[in-house]
């Protein structure tokens, strides 16, 4: 009993201590934004107001900011899942784009299927991303290729092929956009914060975060995956079938990216436009880094990322800040946030 009280107390005390690092980082990052605004803008007060208050000033901006975070959450979950198994998935760009494309095309083809069509299309999108990543995992299992490179190269190739398909055989002739046909209206997710773009896909993102967390920390497969990620030799020693943990986590990782792509289509874009997802994969990787690959930390990390991004966009629209300056501010913030030295502040010193 005493023991349990003691542990609870420790856990209670442990929270603010480990959050200290994040707070310090946040403070330094904000200080950097202030400094840069005063240096680079002629109207620093206006710039800062739009940077910080802009994303929250009305439901339109707030909703769009939240909407930006949705594909980031899915992607970051994907990166983290692979990372927990000791694999790198750098192919998020292509997996997301490919997943979005297949989901769109399937939805258009299955227009008459109703709810089954929605589910089928989304699942197909996820499987597309999953198969792409799993292929790299399979290559690693079979020939010990480096999945860091193969995911990246495969993703680039697939992006080009998808671009061709959108501009060629699958282009919607009725618009001037380089885009596929739109998915049927009955398939689209409901908007939950008019007039912004925010859709109910946000709920899916939150649910998926919980699912991934439970998978990693509560299931046998998740346990095996984590043990394999921490020490492959130990996992093998304990009789864990090591080959499957080179492929399965990659499949799930790619599937989450594909799902993120499908969500973007069903919630926001409705048609797969050429290069609509450029940057989403990499941004998701940044979010995963900020969250240090912990599923529950991904939601705040993605919101923070989206907040800074829309703040920069706002400042750009409403003050004299140029695109380049906004990007510099953004980069400085992320640079600080991903610094592992700063993150360690307040946590226990490691051994040796």
């Amino acid at each position, binding site marked *: 009993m005493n023991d349990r009280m003691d542990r609870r107390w420790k856990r209670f005390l442990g929270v603010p201590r480990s959050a200290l690092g994040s707070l310090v980082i946040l403070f330094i990052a904000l200080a950097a934004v202030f400094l840069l605004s005063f240096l680079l803008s002629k109207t620093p007060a206006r710039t800062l107001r739009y940077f910080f208050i802009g994303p929250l000033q009305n439901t339109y901006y707030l909703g769009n900011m939240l909407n930006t975070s949705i594909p980031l959450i899915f992607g970051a979950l994907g990166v983290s899942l692979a990372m927990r198994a000791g694999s790198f998935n750098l192919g998020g760009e292509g997996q997301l784009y490919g997943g979005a494309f297949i989901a769109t095309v399937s939805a258009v083809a299955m227009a008459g299927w109703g709810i089954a069509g929605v589910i089928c299309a989304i699942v197909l999108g996820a499987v597309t991303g999953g198969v792409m990543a799993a292929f790299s995992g399979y290559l690693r299992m079979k020939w010990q290729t480096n999945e860091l490179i193969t995911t990246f190269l495969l993703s680039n190739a697939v992006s080009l092929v998808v671009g061709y398909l959108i501009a060629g055989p699958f282009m919607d002739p009725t618009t001037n956009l380089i885009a596929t046909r739109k998915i049927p209206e009955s398939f689209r997710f409901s908007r939950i914060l008019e007039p912004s773009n925010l859709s109910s896909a946000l709920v899916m993102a939150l649910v998926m975060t919980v699912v991934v967390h439970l998978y990693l920390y509560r299931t046998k497969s998740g346990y095996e995956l984590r043990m394999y990620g*921490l*020490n492959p030799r130990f*996992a*093998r*020693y*304990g*009789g864990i*079938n090591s080959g499957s943990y080179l492929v399965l986590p990659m499949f799930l990782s790619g599937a989450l990216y594909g799902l993120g792509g499908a969500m973007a289509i069903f919630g926001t874009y409705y048609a797969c436009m050429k290069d609509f997802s450029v940057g989403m994969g990499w941004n998701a990787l940044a979010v995963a880094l900020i969250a240090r690959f912990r599923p529950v930390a991904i939601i705040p990390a993605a919101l923070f990322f989206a907040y800074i991004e829309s703040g920069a966009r706002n400042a750009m629209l409403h003050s004299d800040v140029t695109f380049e300056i906004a990007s510099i501010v953004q980069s400085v913030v992320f640079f600080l946030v991903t610094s592992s030295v700063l993150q360690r502040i307040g946590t226990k010193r490691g051994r040796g």
Partner: protein
Amino acid sequence: MSDTAVTMHDIVKTYRETGRCANDHVDLTVGRGEILCLTGENGAGKTTLMKVLYGMEKPESGTIAVMGKRVKIDSPLDANRLGIGMVHQHFMLVDEYTVAQNVILGREPMHNRFTIDADAAKRLVDEVIHAHGFSIDPSARVGSLTVGQKQQVEIVKMLYRDVDILILDEPTAVLTEQETASLFETLRTLRDTGKSLILITHKLHEIKAISDRVAIMRQGRMVGQFETASVDERELAGLMMGKSFSPAIEKTPYGRKQETVLRFAQVSVVRRNQGRPMLKDVSFVARTGEILGFAGVGGNGLGELESVLAGTLPISGGTITHRGKDISKSDAHRLRECGLAYVPSDRLKVGSALEASVSENLIIAARKRFSRHGMMRGKHIMQHARTLIDTYSVQGTADMPIGTLSGGNIQKVILAREIAQYRDYIVFSEPTWGLDIASSKFVHTQMIALRDAGASVLLLSSNLDEILSLSDRVLIFSRGSIVAELEGERLHTVTKEEMGAYMLGMHVREAAHE
């Protein structure tokens, strides 16, 4: 100049993670040109004290003087500058580098500011190797060396840095009798050239054999420092344990019904591009109710045998059967399903996932038992962990990362796990490497209890005392083959020298195998 090389005074060190006081106002003096053994139970604070001296841990209070001068040591580099070197229990070597590259790392001979003088490096390292009579090739890749050779590299690394004070953390833990003897020879030579040596060890006979003085620690305190000649082994054991202690192992002769569990028939392992097979025509049976010991000098096949038993090294010829079922082609996964329980020699790289918690480490092979419909049963897992932690008196809690425990406690967790899930046979490889007397005795008692309960126990050990006192039957390996099988009366009368002769391949195999 004073006669003391090191004076540590009133050192206090508390670990923040556990709140345990590892060094409680400890004093230690080391004379010039003497060999001091620092001894005590696991967790007595020996390694911590030496880490303080080597600048790896910062004490809360206390002073250190080296060669009579008060110093502050904040890092191993500081320590090196002051002429202090340390050889760690777990080697700090880059496997992919050659011996010479490892030795010069951090103090490279340079052509100019940017390029390393590789020839000079090789020459300098070669000089150190020859000056002290080591037998390692400076251009060999460290990954290809035996444990004993790796340790030589560590010592050479320190000698290359011109240290006057050399700390060795359990240097003999992984060595064979012969390797130990030659290490001791080296250490004596070093002492005679005026160097001061501090050995952390638990082995009583080694303290007697090598040291001039002995310092004994218990539960973070210094119990006393003695001239080695003035105390006998029994007194030492008493001081270490704080209670009377008998080092002998009591064992009933075996008389249970003996069933064959594991049968090796003409098992060979040939590695590509290597003329000599790693294992050659190895045949033996392991039966229930006996401890089968395997002895051999490093690099003579015991390592490969361990990998074959663990299912991580495929065999190139012969068959292995488990209760009549062919398991020659089984990997680790299938062997675990057959009931393999196995305590590996490499605890940190194979036997545990250091960042995972103790409870997670405890269920690796029994994870099916702790899950239902694919979901882990958290309560059962914690309950299981707490029970085992209590039974094996592990110093730590179920949710601590296992890497934060001491080496001896990590081993206890591994033992607890494997013994808890064994079915009919269990492989122990170097089970007491680095453990103190009480823990070793505990391990030995467990092994005998397993045998008495009808287990087939396979013991691979470089510690001849362990092999001889525990085994019911001993197989001796040399150059990948079994050169002798000792049993019954023969086993009781064999001397360590005879064993050594077999291990070095000086006798041909005499006992024919059934």
